[in-house]
């Protein structure tokens, strides 16, 4: 079953702009993680936010979590062409490290 649904499915922006991706989920979570996948490669962990946190930063990444709305957003500031990739949210529902992944947002950053 799909827990996370990302929105939009695809996003195209110019280099230097900010990119925002949203994730909605259905059941309560222990934590939510964001991953990046470059074309033809495996996923790479970006950032984790716990259910008792509302916002977290890591470099150019900012993640927010609203447990009342069962939603999260990932903001990439000052995007670069190298940020072109698919981005997935993943929810950990019981703290046992088994994740449920969403369907992903394809981000294209153009020069």
């Amino acid at each position, binding site marked *: 079953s799909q827990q996370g649904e990302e929105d939009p499915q695809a996003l195209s922006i110019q280099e230097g702009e900010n990119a925002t991706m949203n994730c909605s989920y259905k059941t309560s979570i222990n934590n939510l993680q964001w991953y990046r996948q470059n074309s033809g490669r495996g996923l790479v962990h970006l950032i984790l936010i716990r259910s008792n946190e509302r916002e977290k930063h890591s470099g150019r990444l900012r993640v927010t979590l609203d447990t009342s709305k069962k939603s999260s957003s990932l903001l990439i500031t000052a995007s670069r062409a190298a940020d072109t990739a698919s981005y997935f949210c993943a929810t*950990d529902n019981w703290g046992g490290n088994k994740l449920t992944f969403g369907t992903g947002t394809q981000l294209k950053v153009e020069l």
Partner: protein
Amino acid sequence: DVKVTQSSRYLVKRTGEKVFLECVQDMDHENMFWYRQDPGLGLRLIYFSYDVKMKEKGDIPEGYSVSREKKERFSLILESASTNQTSMYLCASSLLQGAGQPQHFGDGTRLSIL
């Protein structure tokens, strides 16, 4: 850095064949996972294992089995391959202890069943 290695990047097999996909990790992780990735469906969990000789069904285990004889190696087996098993298969590993452990992925095996 954690390294998760999948034995093949591309694989072509025929309907009815028994197919083995191998995954090895070098960081002594307890958890290992097999996913398949299809366009529009994201990643779906097939099986996972939290210890040697232990396995748990994921969301789509039908048509698959797994083997974990050693801690570092987790094999996915397609007992009798069918065309609807054509997909990208991703292996991942993570530590068991402590909530929120990130998963570390291999680069995937793109499997085509003809």
